[in-house]
């Protein structure tokens, strides 16, 4: 059985997922994800022509409420779990190149 995905595709998906995988993980996931996808494709045995996709199993519609002012967590509580902070800010590495 042909593999559903190869290592190049696994690396591409890892990049989309923002996961820095090791070489060993790429190899392992190529095997395992191929096997899982092969199993998942069992769904193709079913003819789903004309069947509506079901995202939510109950009749859920938009929920509206009054747009009233309420309290919020506040700066200290919000920043309490920050890996790095600078005063009232979350600190992260520079995003723009220095050029």
């Amino acid at each position: 059985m042909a593999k559903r995905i190869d290592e190049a595709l696994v690396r591409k998906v890892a990049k989309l997922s923002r996961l820095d995988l090791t070489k060993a993980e790429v190899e392992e996931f190529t095997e395992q994800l191929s096997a899982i996808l092969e199993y998942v494709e069992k769904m193709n045995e079913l003819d789903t022509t004309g069947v509506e996709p079901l995202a939510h199993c109950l009749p859920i519609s938009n929920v509206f409420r009054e747009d009233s002012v309420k309290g919020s967590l506040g700066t200290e509580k919000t920043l309490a779990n920050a890996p790095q902070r600078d005063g009232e800010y979350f600190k992260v590495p520079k995003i723009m190149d220095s050029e």
Partner: protein
Amino acid sequence: MRNELLEMGCKELRDSISAGQVKSVAAAESVFERIEKYEATVGAYISTFEEQALRKAGEIDKKVSSGEAVGKLAGVPIAVKDNMCTTFGATTCASKILEDFHSPYNATVVEKLLAADAVIVGKTNMDEFAMGSSTENSGLKKTSNPWDTSRVPGGSSGGSAAAVAAGLCFAALGSDTGGSIRQPASFCGVVGLKPTYGRVSRYGLVAYGSSLDQIGPITRTVVDCALLMNVISGHDLNDSTSIDERTAPVCDYLEKLDEPIEGLKIAVVPEFVCGADKEVQKAISDAIEVYKRLGSEITEVQMPHLDYAIAAYYVIATAEASSNLARYDGVHYGHRTENPQDYFEVYSKSRAEGFGKEVKRRIMLGTYALSSGYYDAYYLKALKVRNLIRGDFSKVFEKCEAILMPVAPTTAFKLGEKIDDPLQMYLSDIYTIAVNLAGIPGISIPCGFDSNNLPIGLQIITPAFGEEKLLRIARMYEKETSWHKKKPEIKK
């Protein structure tokens, strides 16, 4: 005295504490004594709160002695799965990425437990981010099955089920996305209910598969399950998918619990019973006989699309997970890598270091299923299959009031047995997953033991918002049998 306390159900304990016959502090102390003795062997908890619990218990005793009214769970020691946010202790989801995360708010269910005067004992181990069927995917610790410590407790709410079975609490909350309450309840010989989607607020439950996740009780008896449902059910403005009272009113699940359903119409899917191990089959067939004896009418039905439930689930749940877990980016909270070279590495290295293998695997699978060029073939197809699966249930429920089937094809398997083969692990969810896809309630109740003295669970499924009837049906069986009274002898 102490041991007698541990024999009590939540309701009995609550009544005794409220009447001043038993001290809440004594109940909490007896639980912490057991934790001291057995936790090293079972490994159910990620964190425990002895000091806080005893303080709360003391406050409840004071309220009782001063004649103040106390809540529905007055003094009952309860455990909470570690994916529900608490302002006390950490909320880790058994993940290294959240190991030091301290939630600024309580989940709605936690607020409800506290308001009902429950005493929160600790937070239980689980598969990382609730992804798994054995609790072996925990990034923080190992949990053993109290009935045989060389075996898994099931998962992902394995810590909660093991804690209840081992008497390390009186009841617990779990969460169920594809069987994560019912399967560990079955493996540990306790009662576990996954309510209808939207019955219990998910506010403060760390999201895995948002259209499937639901919080529910894990208890020793159906009576205790009903009591906990009375506390945690209901509409919550903070969860827009929770169902309002007009659509489906919450009722008192204890009120008619002991009234059997006359002429109950039960559906059974023969291939599902036959698909399980011989000893599981026998236990399920015997349970069906019990219902027959009670006057229920059994109808054999076909549910042709249920065979595709695992395939659809592992696309839908992983797609939702890949989106939900994008928030762990090392920026606002959670683990951040030591020396990132640039902002991209803040994300990719923090996530690579913080997530365990199964979480990475599911994020990868979900990202792939949602990615350009594959969306229609996998995600959209899975949503259509989901509709067909819901249709199978609707059709059965036109003529029958409940469906009986096994919870899992086997009893608890050995630690390490399936950990290297993710697909084999996924297949162990075969009987539980469809219920989440259809959004309906399902319960696991003890229905026997195999030749290794491992518990077997019976699953009962009803239409959406049928919890009142579901619990009564489960209670009919519980009253006729004594499986739920057996307790494990915990051997190191």
